[in-house]
């Protein structure tokens, strides 16, 4: 994995170097003339079709055969099947398979590691491409597609379908397939390596693991997904426990007697020095027994550790180590990542004197790191002793109280770890989940100083480790139907993540709810940005709308999105980028305008010459888009209108409509209720 980091760092250095060179080559900004406006953009949008020469057609794809190695893996076969399946859908022609063999200048598409590829002189270096990258290159009439791994090969084929042949994988139930009997294969020399090794946009499709093939089409891998090895496989993440799982690792149930933690183990669980702290109200596992582990238990002042307490009982560390060893030993899937997360249901779990003293000295995150370092050392030793060949990493969840890097800032503004014992081990990845950060701006924006994280959040963590994962949020988790657009910030945020070497990005949206258009659109747009943060967002939005809504409705939808976002960002800028503006920017006139736009789109579609079936599809999608401004209008109804009875009627109608499109939740854990008008 660190090879990837090195590679990314290398790429970044090259980019920086190039930018310096360009400046040095006299391309300094021209003196600003009157009536000129400076533009903040300084990087060209990345081409999604780089390396494809659309002026050089090699021939119709129907003239081609597919080559697979006789030793092809199931994933390579799957890649080839995808190719054949979609070409058939596009052209009506089933591509034949040709035998693998020596390279020849024939019209073939070589998929994966074939003898044809090996003899062609085209290379697909796994070291360079890593797991998900791929090369796609023609040599003569032959087109060669090969990934660094099988998954990369699948992505290469999907890339070919998307950018040579024009297939658009839009939503789980909507794939645009052009009707093109003469679809063309172009000359190309294309190498694609994703910015992040693992990626996922956590909407309901991902959260409920709907249609693994669709997830593959979006090139997502995640612990939330179940993608079989035949389809390229998933990231090697042990999925046994939920995210907030420390109590599960410790196998808390072993220490429960008559419904409470046996007093002899009090030291291992969150306690106030004498008794266990419990949180029976929360839904988290084992909370009725203990709010969390005591992360000081078993950790000595100098960072050394003890697996057993003086009385011979296991320490919290000992429990966690034993639990994790057992899992790793019996893990038949040979995973690489084992997540260790604090309880989400009780912020600041242990109040024993040692933890309180430790928190003052090391910070809360520092206590957690010292604990996880000890856990990591034990696991590393265990892995070596057991002869386990695979790389094993522990993922530490930096969330809520453990979000903040244990660092000091010197007079020059540089950060250094607060104590050597708080520097993370090499076999630990920290998963940052800055849930309360300002989602509208970059991580380095001064407005982040109004949050608890500050503008140097990423910089601070970089002083602790160089191994990162990121769990961030694109929508407002409290009001799922509120149009809380954060799209303008994601180029900068993902670029930062790329620069510090984040391995895995999970972007959480309205993860339980389907008919929320912001998530529908974001999945497509941000899904692409997770591959390359420099892609052209305007282009992506226009593309999505064109194929998802048709030519008639697409301009309206794009205008709707731009209207809402530009209004929102104008309000944010005017109010010091206060994140709360994201829930306040919508005026009655704006919402009327937005709803009016979408209503007009419906009327235009209705008046068009499209088939009845196609009209119904587009109109339903437009109605789903409209749910968000309708919701916002109703949310402030009594500010805009005066008739409360009418409001209740309209709320009921909204809920009915939303439910007919599959709505269930108005926010996490809270369902719509037609009788009680639950409408937070």
């Amino acid at each position, binding site marked *: 994995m660190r090879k990837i980091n090195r590679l990314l760092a290398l790429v970044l250095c090259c980019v920086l170097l190039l930018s310096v060179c360009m400046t040095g080559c006299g391309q300094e900004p021209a003196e*600003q003339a009157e009536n000129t406006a400076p533009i*903040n*953009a300084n990087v060209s949008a990345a081409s999604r079709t780089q390396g494809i020469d659309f002026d050089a057609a090699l021939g119709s794809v129907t003239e081609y055969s597919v080559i697979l190695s006789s030793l092809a893996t199931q994933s390579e076969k799957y890649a080839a099947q995808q190719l054949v399946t979609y070409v058939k859908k596009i052209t009506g022609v089933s591509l034949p398979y040709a035998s693998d063999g020596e390279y020849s200048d024939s019209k073939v598409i070589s998929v994966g590691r074939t003898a044809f590829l090996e003899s062609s002189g085209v290379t697909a270096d796994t070291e360079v491409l890593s797991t998900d990258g791929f090369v796609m290159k023609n040599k003569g009439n032959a087109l060669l597609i090969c990934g660094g791994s099988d998954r990369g090969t699948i992505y290469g084929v999907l890339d070919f379908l998307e950018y040579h042949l024009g297939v658009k994988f839009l939503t789980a139930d909507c794939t645009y397939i052009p009707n093109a009997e003469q679809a063309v294969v172009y000359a190309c020399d294309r190498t694609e390596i994703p910015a992040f090794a693992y990626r996922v946009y956590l909407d309901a499709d991902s959260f409920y693991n709907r249609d693994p093939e669709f997830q593959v089409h979006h090139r997502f891998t995640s612990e939330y997904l179940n993608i079989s090895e035949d389809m390229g496989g998933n990231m090697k993440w042990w999925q046994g426990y939920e995210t907030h799982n420390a109590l599960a690792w410790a196998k808390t149930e072993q220490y429960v007697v008559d419904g409470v933690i046996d007093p002899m183990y009090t030291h291992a669980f969150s306690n106030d020095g004498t008794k266990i702290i419990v949180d029976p109200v929360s839904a988290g596992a084992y909370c009725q027994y203990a709010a969390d582990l005591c992360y000081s238990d078993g950790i000595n002042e100098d960072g050394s550790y003890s697996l057993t307490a003086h009385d011979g009982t296991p320490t919290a560390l000992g429990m966690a180590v034993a639990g994790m060893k057992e899992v790793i030993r019996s893990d038949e899937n040979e995973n690489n990542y084992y997540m260790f997360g604090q309880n989400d249901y009780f912020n600041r779990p242990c109040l024993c004197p040692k933890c309180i003293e430790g928190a003052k000295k090391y910070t809360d995150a520092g206590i957690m790191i010292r604990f996880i370092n000890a856990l990591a050392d034990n696991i590393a030793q265990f892995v070596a002793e057991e002869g386990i060949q695979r790389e094993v990493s522990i993922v530490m969840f930096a969330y809520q109280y453990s979000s903040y890097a244990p660092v000091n800032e010197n007079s020059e503004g540089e950060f250094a770890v607060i104590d050597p014992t708080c520097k993370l081990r090499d076999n630990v990845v920290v998963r940052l989940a800055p849930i309360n950060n300002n989602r509208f701006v970059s991580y380095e924006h001064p407005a982040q100083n109004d949050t608890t994280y500050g503008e140097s959040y990423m910089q601070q963590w970089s002083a602790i480790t160089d191994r990162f994962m990121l769990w961030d949020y694109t929508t407002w988790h409290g009001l799922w139907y509120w149009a809380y657009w954060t799209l303008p910030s*994601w180029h900068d945020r993902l670029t930062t993540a790329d620069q510090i070497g984040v391995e895995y990005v999970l972007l959480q949206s309205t993860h339980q709810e389907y008919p929320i258009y912001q998530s529908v659109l974001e999945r497509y747009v941000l899904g692409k940005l997770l591959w390359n943060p420099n892609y052209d967002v305007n282009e992506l939005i226009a593309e999505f709308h064109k194929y998802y809504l048709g030519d008639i409705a697409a301009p309206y939808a794009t205008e709707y999105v731009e209207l809402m976002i530009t209004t929102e960002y104008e309000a944010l800028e005017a109010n010091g980028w206060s994140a709360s503006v994201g829930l306040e920017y919508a005026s009655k006139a704006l919402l009327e305008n937005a709803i009016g736009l979408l209503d007009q789109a419906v009327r235009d579609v209705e008046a068009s010459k499209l088939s009845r079936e196609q009209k119904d599809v587009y109109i339903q999608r437009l109605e789903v888009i409209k749910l968000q401004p309708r919701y916002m209008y109703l949310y402030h109804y009594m500010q805009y209108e005066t008739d409360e*009875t009418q409001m209740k009627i309209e709320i*009921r109608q909204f809920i009915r409509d939303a439910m007919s499109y599959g709505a269930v939740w108005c926010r996490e854990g809270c369902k719509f209720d037609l*009788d009680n008008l639950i409408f937070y």
Partner: protein
Amino acid sequence: MKQKWIRTLLLMLCLAMALSTVSPALAQKDKTIVYEYALLGQEYVPEQGLISASTPTGETIEKDADRVLLDWAQGSYLFEYEDKIVNLKVYESAPADTLTYTAQVPQTVANGVAAQFPGLTAQSDIRRTDGAPELEPYDVRAAFWFEGKKVQSIPGANAPVSFTPRQSGLWLLCYEYTDVFGVTRSVNYPFTVVDEKVIVTAFQEQYFVGQKISPSDAYGFYCGKNYPVQLAVTAPDGSVTEAADGYTMAKEGSYTLTATAQIEGQTVEKTCAVTVVYGLQSFLTGVEGFDSGTEGLRHENTQTLSSSDKGLVLDMTSATAGFRYNGIIDLNELGKNTPVISFGANHTYGGSISAVEVTLTDIHDPDNKLTVLFSRNSDVTAESMGYDNTMVSATFGNTKVGANNYQPLTADAVAWNTTFHSYWRSASYVSDKKTYGPAESLQAFNFAYDTQNQVVYSYGSYHLVGWENGGTPPEGYPTTTGEAWYPIANLQGSKLTNKFAGFTTGEVYLDLAVTAGRGDVILYSIGGVDMSKLAQGYEDDNSLALAGFGQGLPAVKDMPYDLPAAFEQLVADMEITVSKDGKTVSHEGTAFTPTEIGEYTISFEAINQYGTTIQKAVTVTAIEKPELTVSYPASNVKMGELYTVQEPTVSGYGTVNCVITVNGKNVKPGDKLKVREEMKISVTATDLLGTKQTETQLTVDRDYVEFTGDFPRSALCAAEFTFPEITAYDHLSQKELDCTVYVDGQKQEKTILLPQEPAVLKVEYRTQRGSRYYDLHVCPAEVSTGSDALLLPKGATAVTNDAGTVVTVLASDPVVSLPYKLSATSLPVQFVVLEDQLSFNGMQLRLTDGSGTCITLSVMGLQSTTPYLYVNDENTLIAIQKQAQTFASGVYEGKTYYTFTLEYHDFYRALLNASKIETYVQTDVNGVAFEGFRDGVYLDICPLEIQGGTASFAIAQVSNQYFYQSAFEYGDIVAPALNTRDFIVNHAYVSSGDTLKLSGLRAYDVLTPDATVTVTMTLADGTVVCQDADPGTVRDVTFTDVGVYTLKILATDGVNVKKETVCRFTVEDRETPEITVNGEVPTTVKAGDSLVIPGAKAEDVTSATIKAVLLRPDYGIETISKGDGAIDAVELQKLPAGTYKIRYVATDQRGNITTKSYTVIVEG
């Protein structure tokens, strides 16, 4: 595999014997025997860790020997290591290999045509002691050489290989393999490729009945060019058919296909023998994703079924698969106890089928569809299950009826043999209201359809996963496990916003689609047809259906008569004939016109896809044209009475529809109308052949005196009572008449003193032309309590405490009244009942206005768990909350009680509103169309179904007055309530042109009758239209200008308690600004070039701002220019490549927005 085992055991035994002389102490049983082979004279290099070694002759080899010369053949060297023993067999020369070909290598093949070359089995002659081959056959490659170059190498040449040479000349086929000694061996065969005139065919050896072949399945070929062929088919009966347009295999048997092509002046012919059998394609069309159809026993996984049952097994080959049934299913005929489809799912491909959709499509209306989905959540792998399972749902249009716990429906989860795993996410998201148990794997499905009630039924084994509150399912649902028919989806369920209207005639097409998972589908029956018929042949008469035939009507002579619709999706070459008396008569298009009366036969003939001719016919009788007649009964009606609209008498051709109007207003039979004027009744009747109208004028008897005025139902004992003014209007003379008041026959003064004791006075308003009688209930009241706002019947008592004014009434006269009219604008009534005093089962509120319009609202079933609301004695099925509470203090401390609240709203829409009420009153208690109360209302409160002689309840609130001690203060301190039907007494947004009608505004007070109201109206520009004026004297106000209009209402009751209400009516500016852009925005520029954004201006009725905003490719947003009313052009320099959006945004004072948006591509 078994033989290998035996062989290995034998070898181990032999080895053990051999080794026993070498190293008897070795634990040989734990060591793996590895056989290796070498030729005499080769050297063997021992591996690290050699323990012992010996030659075939038993001589010991030194353990530290770094290489061993193999100088003895026909025996084994043995090398023992820590974990294995190498048995090295040495041969003087390699034993011969046996080469076996699957066929002869062809000597000559045609250029450009795929040729078959035999497979080669190369088997070493090294044999075991029992003579069997010791080694597996070698892997053979076939290499094709031309002019000294290898053109293609094909692995796996143990089986026949196909190769297409692309050049004519002498070729070499080289079979290659590497033997066990590492020596590569090859066998070469030359063959000649010639340019030959041939016919290439893609015919299969076997077809299924119903499949069609095409001439395009074959072509002539010579020197790289294709030539078309003519195709002739010889059927099993010897008949020959030229098949220029293809040929459908209609029967089982042997066919001969003859393809002929003209190639460069020469006729070339090729014949192919094919066999036709019944199979998958004989049943199904549009099969996708299924590999084949084979007859099979029900799969072992379908545990609940008999092993002798047969079905059709479809092997699924892709992630999704589907088919269409080749026939039409009549759901009516099947009924709800015969499966529409019965199928099972098998587990292969490492997963299992997890979602199957069966779609029924109305043959008469393709948009009328129903999909029944069987699924295990939305996952496709068994390992990923979580949450509650989605089991079964039905979908029509956008409406889903489901048993999904994520759908807020009453139907609950009945697992359909689905798998439920306890998954790590489950704990947080399963419903805590349910109990769960494991279910089995997705297995067998049957569903039937009840066309009467639009309910999907299912039969099969089931396992109940969860039920609300963990309780027992309702009657009719299975409780644990078993087999049964039971409803799984009610498509007309009460909770559904859309109801499924059903199929036109019940005739449907059926499609099945596997939408998730992989595996086999085993079909048992479709549409009542057993799939085991596969072995017996199958022909489906249902391929052709007729429908919509004349709606059961006879034909009419000389008039076009629609032919029945023929649904020919599954047939071809439809021919229609119409005949009478054995003669065929002509018809045109979709109709024919009978020229004489009598019976006609309409025949439809078509060919189904098995080639069988299907014929269906219907008959119809032609008659003379029937006459349309319509009449309406005339009658006398009396002014002031109710008239019930009658059913007209009609006859005509088919169904006759009538539209009835009374004085131009639409009515329907049974409507009751109060006679207030002359009544002209018009009936327009329409049948299929035309329209006819009749008018009836009712004779109105005007001998009627109409009395109008407010007469109270009750009054206080011993109080001074002034008889209200009642107007008597004589419709005959059209004059008002003088009234004189009599009580019990005695003429009265205008004001009297009422009796001391409770009584019912018969009050007569007498005129020269008749009297009107009113009952005046003289009631007692306890002035010291809140009950002075109530009029109590005889024998009733009232005491006020903190629960309310507790009224105890006798069952013989239980009606409690409010003494004065109340506002119906918002009339809440709350009463409290102690649990141990709930001696009655209902409570009725009766609202009556001065014109006699009356409605009743009753809460019935108070003693049950769920009381319901009745309106005018009709059960609305609206549940009223009944929640037991306990008094914390006061006289009832510790006692359990119930509180009920009804609130009546008389807005412009007569909306009833209480805890869960939302319905409209259609008619009043007399059945007269309800148009709202004309004025305030009297309120009577009456307990119903009293047991034990008395009923006791506490009135807590009526209208704006509270009736409990802590809130009630003696005297009237509460201001009047306001009421009007014409507008909402609140702030409102209105549109320009709307009118405000103030004249109907009234003030009402519970305790004093003579409340007054005045209004002050101020226009948006500050003009005062009226000030402190009686609303009855104020003209309507029309809103015109944008701005806020203010209405101040001052209400004052009889004891001068005032209430001022201010209503703001806002006319909003909804006009959006206009943007004018001063020039063109370029659509493309080169990266590095400058981009000029033209200036623009915004115009609006109010002032407007305008700005230009740039949306960068990274979606960064920049405002590049901003101004009031106008902005100048701006030049943007050195834009990096990408897509940019330029947006002009104009915003007026209200916030109305206009945008103009442009896309600019900056080309890199």
